């Protein structure tokens, strides 16, 4: 950009109504899922089923935040997969730790 002595002329575009509406919709979905989590927290007995539901709902929320707020859904496919595929290492960490943790110590 060339150097001018005065402030640059900026064209301000009007708000993208459809996009803003979508962002608020995503926020409402995140709030609603959190509300559902609260209801489940106080109505369901503790156990594997409850934990499973919480994990699913958390992944759904994470999907909305990363996909919509962080815009990853709309990025180039190479970037999308470059971010998502390494998450497999976290899955590996989880599986490996749980597997090792379930082994009986030899001295028992």
């Amino acid at each position, binding site marked *: 950009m060339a150097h001018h002595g005065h402030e640059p002329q900026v064209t301000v575009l009007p708000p993208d109504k459809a996009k803003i509406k979508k962002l608020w919709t995503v926020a409402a979905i995140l709030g609603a899922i959190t509300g559902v989590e609260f209801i489940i927290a106080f109505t369901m007995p503790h156990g594997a089923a409850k934990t499973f539901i919480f994990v699913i709902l*958390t992944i759904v929320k994470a999907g909305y935040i990363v996909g919509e707020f*962080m815009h990853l859904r709309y990025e180039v496919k190479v970037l999308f997969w470059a971010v998502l595929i*390494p998450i497999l290492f976290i899955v590996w960490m989880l599986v490996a730790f749980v597997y090792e943790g379930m082994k009986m110590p030899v001295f028992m």
Partner: protein
Amino acid sequence: MAHAATAVSEKSVWDGGTSPMGASYGKLMMWFFLLSDAFTFSGLLITYGLVRASHPAFEGLPGDFEFSTIHWPIPEKVFEAVPFLHGISLPLVFVGIMTFILIMSSVTMVLAVEAGHRMDRKAVEKWMLWTILGGLTFLGCQAWEWTHFIVGTDTATVKEVFNVETGVWDQIKITGANLHVNQYGPQDFADFFFFITGFHGFHVFSGVMFNFLIYYNTVTGVYERRGHYEMIEKVGLYWHFVDLVWVFVFTFFYLV
């Protein structure tokens, strides 16, 4: 865009001169930094789960739950206090308010990004101020929650400690928690509370600093002169990540 130009020549998009990922260097580096940060938080949360599983859980109905340094506490019995409502049991209400505050500040951040795309300086300033306010409110809530956790409840938890000199089991009373004692459960529970929420809280604190920096640059017209508001996008990615981590902390520390 950069990808369309390569269709003309037979060169691959990876041969240089284009951006194969359709994003600037700074934005890519922010993505990969966040990926590495996700590994760190996963390490903390997975370890929390394993250590919790290696301690005995409370056997019995949630209504009969009592604090003990033997069994792992039920989170909703620990986090049930709300400011100005002392003595009233409101499980997870305060942490719910904190979750709501962080989600809202994530929305105002993405609205600031949207305003930046339109070169609308006034709107960017407005939404950035809301985002900073949300971040500061969250930090204030966390300061209160930490204080409450450290000070403890009205009734002390009794812990039996073997006295080597006298050869008998002494009963000691514990209120509150720190890295030495913990009235709510095994010591590891307090340690993980401080490390996980503390590490996340420090991310929020850094985020507020970055947010203030880009707000300052917006007000002084730095991005307007630069011709784009990409800095808002980059810091926005970081801010959304902080919200994302909280979603996981909320589930695995407070709900499960």
